[in-house]
């Protein structure tokens, strides 16, 4: 550690815990002197009008309170001590802010064996300009939509909701980007799969028709005589509300319930859905005894699977054990890069239902039918 920084920190700690005015005064002299010699820029930062005014205000408040309780003389001593203590703390903070950067933190955390925490800090620091820009944009849009500054402040929950959701999206993108870059320090893939077959990733927003599309793909492949294995997960809907999911074996057409909506946080894996073992059993059966040359259809892989749970072990086994010809996987948009990383797929076609040109069913069918068996 920088000796000047170490000395200032020691002095700041001493000043914080000493009640003797002489000690605090000596600390202030040492802190200011060291900052002046070692880092004049830091010293100038302390002399900003706002900070000086804040310190003077705090000292005046302390003086007034103590003078009222114990007399003016004592009040002046305590007020002076507060002012000096704030000078020490302000100087130390300025020197710390100028001496320590993200690289140093990364190096320290790395030496301490806390590389992940260092990367989290680094991601947080890198995200700050983006978050600041977003906050300003979201606030401007919210103000215009609300018809003025005060009306916008009254609709504060709506603003908070948008900002928090955007932060969540950035976090998802950061995770995806980290996965694509192979940031193994943040999260390691226990057993990386090597998927050499053509992989079609079907994605799109909620309600865009991913499951009906895959059902049509299964039907079309069947008409063309291409063997298909795997499962579909159609939603259970009631009055337009999603109450849960069923799971259907595409080979046998057997259907059971997989998940049902419960109170938030009450479900397995901490989610809003309770999962049924029968559903996972059917999933396992659907991914067992696959005929050679089949196209494997998986609708869908979610966060549970990408954490290694749910259907993931069965998918892993199927991809390793059978000579499949192609793979069709449904996944939500934010998970696409994570999925590609998890499968380590070399030949990938992404079909986004909101952006696809032409008939999506034909596109998927043509991508996987007539392919060669490449995995052994």
């Amino acid at each position: 550690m920088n000796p000047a920084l170490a000395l200032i920190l020691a002095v700041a700690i001493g000043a914080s815990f000493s009640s003797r005015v002489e000690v605090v005064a000596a600390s202030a002299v040492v802190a200011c002197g060291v900052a002046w010699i070692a880092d004049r820029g830091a010293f100038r930062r302390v002399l900003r009008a706002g900070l000086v005014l804040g310190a003077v205000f705090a000292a005046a408040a302390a003086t007034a309170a103590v003078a009222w309780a114990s007399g003016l003389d004592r009040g002046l001593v305590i007020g002076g001590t507060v002012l000096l203590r704030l000078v020490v703390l302000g100087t130390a903070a300025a020197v710390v802010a100028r001496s320590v950067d993200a690289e140093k933190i990364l190096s320290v955390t790395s030496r301490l064996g806390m590389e992940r925490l260092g990367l989290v800090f680094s991601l947080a620091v890198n995200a700050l300009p983006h978050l600041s820009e977003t906050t300003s944009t979201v606030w401007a849009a919210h103000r215009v939509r609300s018809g003025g500054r005060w009306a916008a402040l009254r609709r504060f929950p709506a603003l908070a909701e948008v900002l928090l959701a955007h932060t969540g999206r950035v976090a998802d993108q950061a995770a995806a980007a980290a996965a694509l870059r192979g940031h193994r320090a943040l999260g390691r893939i226990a057993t990386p799969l090597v998927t050499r077959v053509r992989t079609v990733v079907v994605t799109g927003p909620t309600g865009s028709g991913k499951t009906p599309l895959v059902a049509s793909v299964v039907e079309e492949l069947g008409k063309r005589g291409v063997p298909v294995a795997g499962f579909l997960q159609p939603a259970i809907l009631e009055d337009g509300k999603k109450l849960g999911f069923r799971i259907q074996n595409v080979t046998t057409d057997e259907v059971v319930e997989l998940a049902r909506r419960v109170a938030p946080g009450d479900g397995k894996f901490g989610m809003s859905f309770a999962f049924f073992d029968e559903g996972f059993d059917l999933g396992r059966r659907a991914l067992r005894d696959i005929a050679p040359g089949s196209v494997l259809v998986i609708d869908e892989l979610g966060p549970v699977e990408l954490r290694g749970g749910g259907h993931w072990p069965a998918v892993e086994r199927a991809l390793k054990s059978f000579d499949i010809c192609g793979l069709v996987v449904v996944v939500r948009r934010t998970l696409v890069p994570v999925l590609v990383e998890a499968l380590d797929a070399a030949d990938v076609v992404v079909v986004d239902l909101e952006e696809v040109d032409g008939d999506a069913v034909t596109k998927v069918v043509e991508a996987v039918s007539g392919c060669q068996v490449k995995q052994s």
Partner: protein
Amino acid sequence: MKDLRPWTHAALYGALWGALEATAGTALHLGRVPFRGEIMGLIGLVCLVCLRRLQPRVGVVLVAGVTAIFLKIFTHGGLYPGPLVGIAIQTLAVEFGFIVARGPVAAALGGIIALGTNPVQRVITAWIVSGTEAATAVLRAVGELGGVEARWVLAGFVGLAASIGALGGVWAWRLSGRVVRRLGGGP
């Protein structure tokens, strides 16, 4: 595979909280706005509850808290112990709330502890910065103004802050539910 999202969510929500502490927190502090501790406490509570609802894992809130402290250290208030202690206590409170309870009750419990300890923490900070005499004098002065003993003044502040924390926790839970729906939660 291990999902990276708990780490990135903790980093981003911690960054959001840290950035708000460094900007809005400093502005409220310099403006001497009343209940600034409670306002910043509520902001932190919303960030943490939302994070915990999006990534329901033990420890994720602690990582976000450490991140917020890390960012706060880089501001001028970095060595001023109040906000740093506040962030640490709030983080532990929310984590504790979600370990011992579930749903809105967990959020309310986290809010009660996080904001209820705010006045106590402020007295401790005042003691560190100003010394015992000034802190006691302020409590005595407030008490004498209202004609009650200092400990009852402190208890009153704690009760008020805890009530705000309970309501804030439930509100944060509902708000985070809307955020989860907006992000398209599902299996």
